[in-house]
Each structure stands twice: as C-alpha cells, then as structure tokens.
C-alpha cells in the first residue's frame, strides 16, 4: 500500500504542476505587434507613433537613379542605354513589356500609399498633438496621396479615385476608372487645398526634406502641364496651357526658390534653394560606384559604369556659345568633338578624356574603361557623369548627398516657358519664355553672346520656341526621369523613340590622338499609341472586374 500512496502523490503533483502552468500569467498576445489604439494614441501629446505613420508615407515617394533593375528609366529613351547585358529596362526600351511582364509597375505601391494616407487621415484626429503639427501632418498625407495619384495617371491614364474611402475585407472591389481629367482635377484641388496648410519656406535644418508649400505648387504645375500636353489635350484647349503657366508662375512667385550657381552642386547639396522637393537618402557613394567608368577600380573603390548615354544626347548639347553643333559658327569640331561644349555636357557625360579621380577617362577601343572584354562596360563610348560631385582630382569616392530631386526649380522655369509659349502665341509670351531659357543657360555657363541670348535664336516663332524648350528640357534634365514622360505627353514618341541608339567608336591613333566614328548600338522601339500608357497588371484586370485594360495591351 506504500507504493499506492506514492503513486497518488505523484499523480497529485503532476496535476498540481499542470494547474500551476495553466495559472501562470504571461503575455496573451505579442506586445511588440502594436495595435491601432497604440499608434493613434489618444493620450500621447507627442504623437510618437502617429509621427512614424506620417514618416512611413514618405517612403512611397517616387525615387529615381538606377531604380529599374540597375538602370535609369531614361535608359529606355533616346538619351541612353544600360551598359548591362540583362536588365528589365530592356523590356521597356524594346517594347517587350506586357501586362504579365511589368516594368516600373507601381499600380499596387501607389494604392498602398493612398490607403495608408487615407487611413492616417481618418485616425489621426484622436491624437492630441498641437494643432499646427497635426495640420502639417494631414497636409503632408494629402500631398503624398495626390502625388501617388499623379504617379498613377502618368503611367496608366485615368484610374479609380477613392477619395477618403477606406476599403475593408467586406468590400468586393469592382471599381471602374475615373477619367484622366477627373484625376487631374482631384490632384489640383488637393494641391490647392493643402498649399496653405503645409510648411512654408524657408524650413529649419531639421525639417529639410519635409513637404512644403512649394512642393504642392510644383506638383500642381507639373500635373497641369501634363494635362495640357498634346497626349492629354488633343483639342489643344489653350486654357489648360494657361492654367499650367499660372501654376508654374505661382512657384516662381513664392520668391524663394532660385537656381544654384553651380549645375553640379545642385544635385549634391542636401539643402538648396533649387531643390523644391527631393526623395531623401542617407549620404552614400552608391551613385559613384554605379555610374563611374568601369575601369576605375582599386583596393579602395570599384565602379560599374551601368549607364551608357547615347550619341543623340551628346549631340543635343550645344557648344559653349549655346549654338547647336550643326551650326558651322558654333565652334564645334568633329575631330575634337568634346571640346568647347556647353559646361553641362561636362557635368553630364563622361567622355573620352574627361578627368576623373586623377586620370583621363579612356573610352577608346581597348582603353581602360572600354577594354572590350566580358566585363560590363559602356556600349556607346560614354558614361553618365551627372549627379556626381566633382571628383576630377580626388583619390577616392566619399559619401555624398544623393537625394533624388522630385521637383527642381529649373523644371519649374521650363514648365513655365513651355506652358506660356503654348498658352498664347504672342511675342509677350515668348519674351517670358526667353527669360526662363536664358536664366537656365546663363547658370549653365553658356556664353552670353550677342543680345545676351545665350546662343538662342532671336525672334523665334512659337514652333521654334517650342523646339528650343524641348531641347533645353532634354539637356538640362537628362536622366532625371523627365524625357521618358515628356516625349510621351508630347505625343512624339513614335518618331523620337523609334530609332537606333548610336554611340561613338573612338580609335586611338597615338597617345592623345583619336579618330571618331559613330556606330549603331541597339534599337529603341516604341509602339504608338499603345506605349504612351502602361498596361494595368493582368492580375488586377482579373481581380477587379470593374477596370478595363488600356488600349492595345
């Protein structure tokens, strides 16, 4: 019977221990997974997490540089090609993308930003932060929502506008598209509503990078410019151009923004009056590594030379006198083609003979930067210099500011010039356009020349002025993700983007003596009008029965 007792004790102990375990108090649900009432805390006067929710919205802002599988979006234009042998960018440049092979597809990410902005706007009211902070936050959220819609209509045409609607799992989403113009209207009305609620320039050092009044006005100016352009304004309704001009003027009239005296520095300065709004990045040397000519390698640094600008772009740069290279009086010499050019050329292109890290770039056949081995190297004889600080005599790369500029004051000036020139075919309008162009060319470092026209023809017609503005946009804003969209909105991609990209074959005859021969590199293909818009993802067409595919896809 002793054993019987023992066993009873054992069982009792076991049962007790079970009970003990069951009673122990421990975390019911994981506390690190924060819930809504903590994020939008009605007791937190600092709005610690609500602030982070706003910050999260910023991460959806468009960014550029080598974002398409290591290539610039501009590598799908006539401005250049990717040096890489394989990259998604080829789907765009060779017209091979489809609704199931998507490139630069931001349909989902923009609607995510819109959802998060709407969610923030609907919840943040309970957070007891000071009114002004909350006003800024809400306006910032609305800006990002508007920006997201712009990124959508730019790519896909009219898309469903959700307003403040937040869908839940109970909703069966079957939404038809709104029109492009409704999208424009919504964005403009939002910009109008928030421009007075946002931070005003100048902002304090810690606020650099936050959305300001200027950003909202610049967005409005760009949206209206796009909507007035031939692709979206086939009947050429000039009032659209006029509102675009007025919107651009409103940015100028803030009397705050200005061109940086140095074209190079405009891209590598974190806080600069030329930068209206930029995607902020920590200081890095990613661009130096990605873009510098492929032969620049040592223990300390390496270079990948991922982008090869085209001969077309090179030829588009005027000479120092501001005249096109085709002009016999321009000072251009085919046997010494890189001398005596618009200083922006030097700041944009690495050509054979550019100075970099203490030596000359060698893109002649067999040169250190074009050895013709299996290494990734330039296809055109050029590399992309733009966006990098001046390292001509440096010995190493250093971390630099590489914010991707979303709105630059130079663009505003060009937007203004383009819109005013189209709004009104008059000398007065063209005079305004002249002022914008000469301001830009002056800063570029082009010689003033006779009548301080900086190489521009005097007394241009509206069409001549249009061509001059288009050229200026191309060289001033190369690789800033403008030309890809500009040519589409001008509805001229069928010719501009259907050509063979050319490069320069440089042969070294003897040290310092070179011969130049343009060569075909690869074709650029554009199917018009289909490719003016992107395809809606096939999966979305399947899931959302209300939406229709863009024509041709």
């Amino acid at each position, binding site marked *: 019977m002793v054993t019987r007792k023992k066993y009873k004790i054992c069982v009792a102990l076991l049962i007790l221990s079970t009970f003990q375990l069951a009673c122990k108090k421990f975390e019911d649900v*994981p506390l690190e997974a924060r*819930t809504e009432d903590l994020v939008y805390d009605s007791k937190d006067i600092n709005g610690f997490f609500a602030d982070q*929710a706003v910050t999260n919205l910023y991460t959806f802002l468009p960014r550029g540089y080598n974002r398409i599988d290591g290539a610039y979006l501009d590598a799908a234009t006539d401005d250049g090609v990717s040096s*890489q042998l394989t990259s998604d960018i080829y789907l765009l440049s*060779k017209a*091979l993308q489809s609704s199931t092979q998507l490139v630069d597809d931001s349909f989902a990410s923009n609607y995510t930003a819109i959802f998060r902005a709407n969610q923030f706007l609907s919840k943040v009211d309970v957070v007891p932060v000071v009114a002004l902070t909350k006003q800024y936050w809400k306006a910032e959220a609305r800006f990002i929502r508007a920006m997201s819609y712009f990124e959508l209509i730019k790519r896909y045409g009219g898309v469903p506008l959700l307003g403040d609607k937040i869908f839940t799992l109970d909703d069966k989403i079957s939404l038809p598209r709104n029109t492009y113009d409704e999208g424009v209207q919504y964005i403009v009305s939002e910009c109008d509503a928030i421009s007075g609620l946002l931070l005003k320039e100048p902002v304090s050092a810690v606020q650099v990078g936050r959305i300001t009044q200027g950003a909202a006005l610049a967005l409005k100016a760009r949206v209206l410019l796009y909507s007035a352009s031939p692709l979206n304004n086939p009947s050429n309704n000039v009032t659209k151009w006029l509102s675009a001009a007025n919107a651009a003027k409103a940015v100028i009239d803030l009397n705050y923004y200005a061109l940086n005296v140095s074209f190079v520095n405009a891209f590598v300065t974190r806080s600069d009056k030329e930068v209206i709004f930029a995607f902020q*990045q920590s200081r890095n040397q990613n661009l130096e590594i990605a873009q510098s000519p492929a032969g620049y390698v040592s223990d300390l640094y390496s270079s990948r030379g991922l982008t090869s600008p085209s001969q077309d772009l090179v030829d588009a740069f005027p000479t120092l006198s501001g005249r096109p290279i085709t002009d016999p009086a321009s000072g251009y010499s085919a046997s010494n083609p890189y001398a005596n050019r618009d200083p922006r050329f030097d700041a944009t292109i690495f050509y054979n003979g550019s100075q970099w890290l203490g030596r000359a770039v060698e893109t002649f056949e067999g040169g250190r930067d074009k050895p013709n081995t299996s290494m990734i190297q330039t296809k055109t004889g050029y590399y992309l210099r733009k966006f990098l600080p001046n390292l001509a005599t440096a010995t190493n790369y250093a971390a630099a500011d590489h914010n991707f500029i979303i709105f630059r004051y130079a663009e505003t000036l060009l937007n203004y010039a383009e819109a005013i020139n189209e709004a009104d075919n008059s000398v007065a309008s063209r005079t305004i356009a002249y002022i914008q162009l000469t301001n830009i060319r002056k800063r570029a470092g082009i010689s003033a020349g006779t009548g301080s026209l900086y190489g521009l023809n005097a007394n241009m017609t509206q069409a001549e002025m249009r061509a001059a503005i288009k050229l200026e946009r191309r060289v001033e804003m190369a690789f800033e993700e403008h030309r890809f969209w500009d040519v589409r909105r001008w509805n001229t991609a069928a010719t501009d983007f259907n050509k063979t990209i050319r490069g320069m074959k440089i042969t070294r005859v003897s040290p310092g003596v070179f011969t130049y021969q343009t060569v075909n590199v690869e074709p650029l293909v554009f199917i018009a009008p289909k490719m003016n818009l992107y395809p809606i*993802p096939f999966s979305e067409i399947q899931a959302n029965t209300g939406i229709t595919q863009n024509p041709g896809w």
Partner: protein
Amino acid sequence: MRKLLLPWYKVIVLCAFSSAILLSSSPDAKAQESARIDTTMKPVSDFGQIFQPLKLNVLYGEQTRDKLVQSIGYLDGKRLESSPVSLLSNAFAGHFSGLYTYQSNGAPRYDATSLSLRGRSPLIVIDGVPRYNTVYNELSLNPEQIESITLLKDGLSSVMLGNRSMDGVLMITTRKKSTNSGSSVSFTAQGGIQEAIGMRKALSSFDYASLYNEARANSGLSPAFSQTQLDGYRNGTDPFVYPNVDWQKTVLRDNAPQMRYTLNASGNYTNVRYFLSLDYQNQSGLFREDDDNSYGTNVDYSRYIFRSNIELDIDKNLRANLNLVGNIQDFIQPGAGYGSIFTLLQASPSNATAVTNFRGTFGGTREYPNSPYAEAVGTGYIKNNLQAAAVNVGLTQKLGSLIEGSWVKALLSYSPSYEQRINRSKNYNAYNYPVTGDSTNFLRVSTISEQPNSTTVQGRFQQTYLELSTGLDRNWGNNDFSAIIVASYDNSQSNNLLNQIYQGVSTRLSYSLDKRFNMELAGAYSANNRFNPGNQADFYPGAGASWNLHNESFMQGNKFLNEFKLRASYAKVGNADPGYYLWRQTYAGGTAYIFGTAATGTSSIAQGALANPDRVAEKAKKFNVGMDLAFSNQRGWVNVDYFNSSQYDMLQTRGSSSVILGSAYPLENIGKSRYSGIEVNTGWSATAGKLRYSISGNISSVSSRVLFNDEPAQPFAYMARTGNPVNQIRGYVADGFFNSGNLTSPRLESFTPSEGDVKYKDLNGDGIINVMDQMVIGNDKPLLYFGANLGLQIAGFDMNVLFQGVENRDIVTTGYYQFPFSLNGQGPAFTYNLNRYTPGTASTATLPRVTIQNEVNNYLTSSLYVQDASYIRLKNLEIGYTVNPKILPSSVIRGLRLFVNGQNLSTFSKYKDSDPENYMGLYPLQRIINGGLSIKL
C-alpha cells in the same frame, strides 16, 4: 488567471459520455491485454519484420492486427540499419507505401529528406510525444534506437490529435528492452566514404569562351575573347593568365569519410527492462582544405547521442517509464557558408580566374573577384554547437481493483534545445596579375579582414508536454471492448516568440465482436492558442469498421487464405495553422526615412496585411477503404488501400484581391481540394533449402484536384486551375525553334525572332504569344512512387537490396544552371548547353541559340525546360556475414557480423544534366560506400 482554451463543459460531457459506456459494460468480463493474440505467429526473420506484426503501435496505445480498423504502415527499425545516413529521414525512401520522399540537399546535417504522406507533410510523434519538424535534431536518431515506425495514414488513425491530425503521423517508437530475456551488449563500428553525385559538368575554358563569343555574335556584339585568349585557353601555356580550372576537382575532394560507433546495452528482466545507447557519428564535407590554415575549414558534422529508456514495474499494477535523451552536435563549415560556396562553385566558369596567381596568392579577377577555392579555404570557419535533451516520465497504474480492466496513465515530457554559432569567418586577399611575372602590375580584388570571435544564439526551443489518460480493456463472451480518454497539453517556446499551446481532449472506443467485426469510434476536441479566442477549438470525430472474413465460417475450409480483412474509415481531421497571432490587426515598423540636413534616419510604422480575425484550422474529410490479405501460411501478403481526402477551409488569398485595397489580403479559409490515391503493399517471404528469402514491394499513387480556389473567370478553359491537379507547372508550349521558314509565326508582341529562338504555340490563335497562351505543361498526372526490396540469407551471409523510384514527376530547370552566361553576361555554361541551336545543328538542337543580352523570349517558362525527373534508384544495398559463434575465439563475444553497405548506388533517369532530386545546384547528394562490424557481448 489565464483564460482556459477549452470550454470545459464540453469536456465534461465527453467524459461523462465515455464513462457511461464504461460502466454499462459487463463488469465480470476478464481483462487481458494479450489474451487474444493470434497463435499463427510467424517468427521474425533476421531481415527484420517485413509484414505487419501482430501487435502495432497506434496513437496512445497498441492494437492487435486482427482488430485493426485504421490504415497503418509499419517498418521494423532493424530495416533502417543498412542505411549509412546520419539523418533518419534519409533512410525512409522506398520503405512505405503512401510516403513520398524528396531529398533536395545533401549537406551534412542539413540534408533532411522532406516527407509527404498522401500529399501532406506528416507530424512526427516520437514515443507518444508530437515533435515538430523544425526541430529536426529530433530526427537525428540512429536506426539502432528504433524499435518500429508506424505510419498513420488515414483520418481515423490520427484523428485523436485533433487540430494536428490532418497531415497524418509518422510515429517512431524507440527500443525499450532487449529481444531476449537477460542482458545484452552490442558494439558496432562502421566507416565509409561519400562521393558527390549529380554534379554538372562545366565547359572547358576554350569551349566556354568560344560559346561566349558565339552568344555575343548572336546578340550583335563583338567577341569578348580574342583569338590570343582562345589559343591561350586551348594551349594552356600560361595557366595564370589563361586559366582552365576544373573547379569541382579544385574545391572538392573525390570523396569524404564518415564514421559511426554505437554501443548499445539492453536488458529484459521480470521487473526491469532497459535500453541504453551511446552513439558517435562524424561526417566530413566534400571541401578541400588548405595546409596554411591552422584550423579546419571543411564541413564537419559530429553528433553524439545518448539514450536511456528504462521501464520499471514498481508493483504488479504500477509501471514507470523513464526515457532520457541527449543530443550534442558540432557543425563546422567554411566562413563563406557551404551553400553559397556550392552556388559559386557551379556559377564560376573554368576561365573565371586562376586558383592562385603566379605569386602563389589567391587569384581573382574583376568579374570574378571571389574564386570558389578562396571562399572555401580562405574565409575562416563557422562553428555551430547544439545541445538538445528530452526527458519523458510516464506512470501507468492498473486500476483493476476499482474497475475491472481499467488504468490511468500520466506522461510528462520536457525537451529543450539550444544552438549557438561561433563566427570565426573572415575575408582574404586576392590579387589579379594581368601579366605573369610582372609583380608590379596588379589589382587587389578581395581584401582581407579581421577574424572576429563572436557568438550568436542560433536557436532556442523548449517543449513541455503533459498527458493524462485513462482507459479500460475488457472482454466478455465474444465481445472485446476498449476505451481511452486522453487529455494533453503541449506547450512549446521557440526563441523569443510567445509560447504556442496545443490542448486537447480525445477519446477512442474500440469494439470487436466474435473476432469478425471490429468497430472504432474516435474523436478529439482540440485548441490552439494563436487563433482568435473564439476560433481556437474545434471537434474532430472519426469512425471505422473492419471485417475479418477469414474468421467467417464459410472461409474456415480455406487453407490458402490465412487472413482476409476489409477495412473502411472516415474522419474529419484538422490542421491548425494560425500563423503568429495573424488574427490581430497590427502595425509594424516600416522602412525608415531621412529628414534634416543631418540626414537623420527616422523610424516609420505602418499597418501590416489586413488581419483575418475569422481564421480557423484547415480541415479535411478523409475516407479510406482497405483490404489485407495473407496467404500460403502467411508467406505472402497483400495490403491495398484507397483514400480520398477532401480538404476544405484551406488557407489562401481570395481570387478577387484587387491591389486597389491598398493593403495585402490575408489568408482566408476558402480553398477546397481533393487528394486521392491507391496504395499497394505486397510481399513474399519463405525458405528454399538453406536459403531464406523475401521479396516485397510497394507502390502508391497520389492524384489531386483543385476544387475551389476562388479563381477569377479565365478567358480560356486551358488557363483555369480549378478542376486541375494542385501544383501543376504552367507556362508556354514550346513548338520547336524559329528557322528561316517560319520567322513570321506568332511570337511575343514586338519581338523580332531570329533563327534558333524558341517558338511557342499560339493557343488562342490570335497571332500573338502572351499570357493567354499559357497552359499546364507539367505535373498533370498522378504522382506514382514505389519501392522494391529483396532479402537473401544463406550460410551466414545475408543481403538486402532496396530500389526506390518515382514516376510522373516533372521539374522546371531555370536560372544560371540552365541558361548560359545569364548572370548579367557572366556565369557558367555546362556541357549540355552545347546542344544549342546553330545553323548547322538545326535539326538536332534541344536548346535555343545562345545569346547574351536582353533575353526575353528564350528563357520564358515553357515546356522546353520541363524535364521528366522520374527516376529509379538503387537506394540501398547491404551484404553481411555473421560469423558462426562456435568459431569465435572468446566465449565473451557472443556474435560477430561484418557488413558492407551502400546508399544511392545507382540512379536511372531520363534527366541526365544533374541529379533528378537535387537539381537546383545545392550541396550534392552522395553515393556512400560503408562497411563495418558489429559485436555482441
């Protein structure tokens, strides 16, 4: 006070119901566990038991074969002993019907075979305690410890596990005693060599460079390799500048050793039974080492296992079980990691770089700065230490004095494991000298770094398992009855996650009438704490019956047929897959953003995927019918099973998941699918003169069908997944290559085909190849898998052969190992890449022309890259010789056996480019030749 997971009133009702049945049964019946064991027992042969034994382990107990209702697979642990593998699961292939095995990685310690039981990955239960696959060290048992493995295949056999019953169960029972009474000690020492199989053959430098130039020419680019370089590769005069390296031979040894020592002691006495085991095993990796290192860098896996199983009869009614298990593992690998070195090894062409440059330091180039050799020997090492233990304490009390035939049992198991990683990895210097002999002209392509000494916790896991059960076994007249009720509590903690708790109450009632009719009812009410409190628990019932026709009077005259049983079962089973509290809507940190001139990183937070608070366990209704036959005095037998499992409440995202929602859709319980199949086991075991032999085989089929997946309306029927097998391969249908005669055939929009590009079928006839032209291109037939075994024994010699194979298995080859130069103009090419299209080989080419740039058309997933990876392997072969004890020199040694065995000896497959199981460039599987001796004391 913690909320109880179960609504206890339901439990009480269940208990009351069961006890009512118990009490209403006849009290004067005699309870005897083994009273009705069939007397036609056949002696166990030395091959190990092949046919199902008379008594089988089932969940929470045993069942005799004649009363069996469930569908169960059985394997004698002895039969695994001929497999010289370190992880037990690698020995399973071919042994069970219904269990599909797939081994895709051969790395020591990480080479676990994935198991699929009737289409699902079975739960592992060891000595009655569910163990999770994630703690794979639980399967690092050695075969000598294993008494038997039972595979619980149908719903009824696993339903007592409730919300863990859907996957079926692989139940491992360890040895508790010696076979014969008294004590015995045995010692086994064995050693073997491993040799990689299925390695791809890289092209020589000359062939590679030539093909590379051809690809560039096809892409309209100038050659990258000059004639001088080509000649240099061909002549091999300057191996530093024109290397031609066989990386496999350079980095890998021809073979690698492994060894194992096992010391077992077991005893079988009236009141005590025990089994003690000590096991040491060491497996070396395939990497070469460098004498310059003062330490080893090769993969080295050592494992010590200790096991002590003791069963004690404290008095005639109280039995105690104590199992102690210890498991210590050390794993060393090169600092760069064995996996990435293997990838690099295969991704490096022969001309990538010289192994060492002319100055004797590591070579490298700008394109290939890291050679696989330098990565294998120059990156230091990483060492993992794992300690795991388990203790099981069980007490069983017979309560015959209280209620005739009744008992209660308690089981407690605690199992911790802890793994730490010691990081002693570093980088190395590698130099490129473009001119041999010119030591001033060089580029350092890789830079040495310090060798740190840091430790990290790699994983910490602990499991506490408690089980209380009570039951009753009785018979009266022609009636046999047994009942069991089990309450279990399984609490596991993994790293920093909150504990996961499975709780349940389950019962099984078995009734047999007149040795002819058997019936079984089982059910479980079980819960998981990671679901929404309202959705944590569910009830899972099952029932089955079997009919022993051989005991019917009309069969009594039949001398040939010894056993003839028909079985049927049906159960609702479940799979709790709550995720980590995914029912809760939560916010998580997102990407940081930068503000201010100081570029300060700022944290961000955002709502995660939408939560689905209604998430519940996945479920299935499993139906099984079977037939068991034994004939010719039980020398031959056949088991046949048919199963049909209707899965529902399967987690998937909804079909209409529009991204306009702006948030990821959660998994919802909406999918429905069906798995069905037939399994046959058969065998014959007999003697012919002095020869004893056995032949056995099994074959299984699994077919599946998507019944509902909320699929959007598809424009063409062939695009639909609903109604088709699960896991089909979908893509374009390759239709030969473009040639000068058909360049205008339908093609991708705006793609300009060249001769030798892949041509695809325009399924919808619209003249364009696009998403509308994708259909099923593989895995559309039921999977068939099989094993065949031959055993022979004569005059002290024994031999065992196991073949194993799969049919109707398709794979898609893709990536750098299929497409040459596809790592942005770099990357390898293999001998099979030479079968590309060239104008001269248009009629025989199996692959498209080689290109190097902007490849869109030729690398699409298409039937061109669907490979028939069906195979048959000579999986295992063992030849042994048992020395006659009479001629042994000492009487202390009671037995001596010598043996040689081998694993993965030969593979037959239509897919020849690599190994049909391990084809994705992971650490190769090995052919193992092993030998040793076993001494009994």
